[in-house]
């Protein structure tokens, strides 16, 4: 993948435009999905899920600045798919040895562990986000999903300084946390009735 294209991809993801990512997704889907099928006897559905996860992983690394270039994107994406497939296979095996596993506080809060997020929490947050105004929603998404820095947020939202952006983001987050807490309480109260 050419450096210019890679830079264009990073720029577009930062402004929430998924056009290039989608064309990358479409360009390599067939190769990765079919290869997972014949090399690992993976079902089409599982292979599709793995491929989507690999693309999201790739996206996340690009927006986080952890990846600044890839020479052979097709091989990179397939490599990620294969790695994810083998990790999941190992996790399934480890279930039988769960008794030997220790509880780690850090693991509880680690970023990788949040795929286990409860469906309830996701529903409340989705609902909570809808109670916020558009600017707040966009600001939180820009920070937590597009991983924009405070400088970039200040520029995007025409704010006077990164400090102002930080205060705004903090206020929006507290509003969201309060809203989600409220939704959670109402849901729990309804459930106990």
């Amino acid at each position: 993948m050419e450096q210019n294209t890679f830079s264009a991809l990073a720029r577009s993801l930062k402004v929430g435009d998924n056009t290039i990512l989608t064309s990358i997704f479409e360009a390599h889907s067939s190769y990765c999905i079919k290869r997972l099928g014949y090399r690992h006897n993976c079902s089409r559905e599982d292979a599709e899920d793995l491929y989507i996860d690999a693309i999201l992983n790739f996206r996340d690394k690009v927006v986080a600045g952890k990846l600044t270039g890839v020479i052979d994107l097709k091989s990179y994406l397939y490599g990620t798919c294969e790695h994810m497939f083998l990790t999941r296979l190992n996790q399934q095996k480890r279930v039988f040895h769960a008794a030997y596993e220790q509880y780690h506080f850090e693991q509880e809060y680690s970023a990788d562990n949040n795929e286990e997020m409860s469906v309830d929490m996701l529903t409340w947050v989705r609902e909570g986000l809808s109670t916020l105004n558009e600017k707040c929603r966009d600001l939180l998404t820009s920070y937590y999903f597009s991983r924009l820095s405070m400088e970039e947020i200040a520029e995007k939202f025409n704010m006077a300084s990164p400090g102002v952006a930080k205060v705004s983001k903090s206020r929006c987050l507290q509003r969201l946390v309060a809203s989600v807490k409220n939704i959670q309480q109402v849901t729990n109260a309804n459930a106990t009735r």
Partner: protein
Amino acid sequence: MQMQPDNEDLQLIEKFIDGELSIDERKLFQERMNDEAFAKQLHFQRAVTDSVRIVQEQELKKKFKQRLEQQRMTNETGTGESSRRNYYWAAAVLVIALASTIFIVVQQPDSSEKLYLAYYQPYPVTGITRDGSEEKQDPAVTAYGSGDYRSAAFILEAKIAEATTRNAEELKLILGNCYLQLGEQNKAALLFKQVMQSDDPVLKADASWYFALAQIRMSDVANAKVTLQDLMATKSAYRSKAAQLLDDLD
């Protein structure tokens, strides 16, 4: 003693999640973690911020799943049609390649290239994506404007598939210009030819002008003359330029 987290606690938690605790704040944070209510608040707030990301990821995941579904349906229903289409494209490319070869032999390629360079100006672009009255900063425009035609072409190819007819015509015109700049005049000519079928007279004239230039670049001078004569018969702004270029070709 267990205390309800106050505003300072909430900010401390937010800083911890964002990885922005100072050394002093880190100590305070560790002390506060002995308070069950504080620890619970941390867990809750972390779950909320992680969920903001996961909710967006799920939306994207849904879109990708729909894409795969569409691809599957297209593959199942369009196999026959696509092979027929491929045949027409192959035939068109063959005709253009043959015409190019004949004229390369007949014409002086250097003079064609000189004329092309003398008359060619990149199609001016101010904004590709239009959402109502607002123009978004578009990576294709940025790439095109900075002369990064390979990236611009890459993005435009994807955009055209999703664009409305009017928008797609404009995008094809820009993509054709990218191809011209990249020396891929065959691909450019095919796109301009498509835009020449437009109902919009301005776009039609733009496309005809660039089509003539692509033909010149392919040393297809005889056909370029026909295109320019057609352009002269219109009321477009290109009339005088077309007449001048025709003179130079003669």
